[in-house]
């Protein structure tokens, strides 16, 4: 924790009270029940996780036809995989995959808000929502990537994708060499949330 993320406790208290009051009023009016929020959160936290993204990436690594389809019509390709159903508009109709290939590295940011592809990646790491990260990544992606340990060759093109309500990007990282004999489980271990945002490479130890 740096000072940048420090949080005044009175403001904290106020925010907590506002949320509690809103939930209480909604329950009182019968809009939701006392269990609604817990149920929704529990489904979300158990099903909407990076495991879904890992499965998509490994399928793309092993099946060139799927890899070609998933970047053209991502929701249709993902529908083949029998992943858990999404939720509300937080679900996957706007998901859009982009694939790293030799000479092209993709980086996903969101300069306005955090329109994160939850259904395949779970919730975003907190630094992803920080305006400093977002604006710097948009302005100087090569420098920011180098700082987080992704040193790209000068000739590698970096494409920065700005997520929005309409397109929620995620990255299919490149399959590391020497993994031809890996099982699905071993391959999935190589795929991290960071690699699907583009701030790491698959199989990169942090």
């Amino acid at each position: 924790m740096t000072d940048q993320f420090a949080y005044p406790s009175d403001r904290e208290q106020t925010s907590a009270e506002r949320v509690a009051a809103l939930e209480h009023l909604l329950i009182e009016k019968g809009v939701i029940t006392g269990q609604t929020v817990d149920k929704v959160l529990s489904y979300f936290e158990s099903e909407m996780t990076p495991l879904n993204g890992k499965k998509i990436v490994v399928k793309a690594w092993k099946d060139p036809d799927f890899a070609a389809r998933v970047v053209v019509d991502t929701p249709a390709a993902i529908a083949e995989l029998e992943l858990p159903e999404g939720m509300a508009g937080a679900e996957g109709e706007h998901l859009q995959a982009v694939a790293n290939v030799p000479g092209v590295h993709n980086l996903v940011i969101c300069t306005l808000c955090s329109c994160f592809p939850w259904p395949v990646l779970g919730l975003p790491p907190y630094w992803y929502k920080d305006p400093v990260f977002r604006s710097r990544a948009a302005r100087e992606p090569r420098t920011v990537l180098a700082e987080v340990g992704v040193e790209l060759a000068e000739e590698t093109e970096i494409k920065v994708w700005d997520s929005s309500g309409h397109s929620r990007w995620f990255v299919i990282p490149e399959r590391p060499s020497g993994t031809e004999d890996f099982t699905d489980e071993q391959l999935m271990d190589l795929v991290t949330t960071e690699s699907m945002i583009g701030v790491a490479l698959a199989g990169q130890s942090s």
Partner: protein
Amino acid sequence: MTALHETCTTDQAAPSFDHDWQRRAFGLALALSEFGHYPWSEFQQSLIDTIGGWEASPESSRGEWQYYDHWVAALEHVVDQREILTAPLITDDGDHAVADDSH
């Protein structure tokens, strides 16, 4: 931000919420959308507007960046706009709000 790498969370750690009220606020926004009280895109637009307002205001007058404060403000705004706390409640058999296109 040179410390970015050290502070990056990993799949295993994934502490998405610093405080329980943030998690509740997240769940509330999701639940109201899930049960048909507004389309998710409407909440998102409200969040974009709220954050846009913060970013457009002078640094001296705006408070510290705190993502979930914006989230709560955006949620309160949508609840207000949709009159969820004030209008009569109309639901279908599955307790889902009946879509109201008049907004």
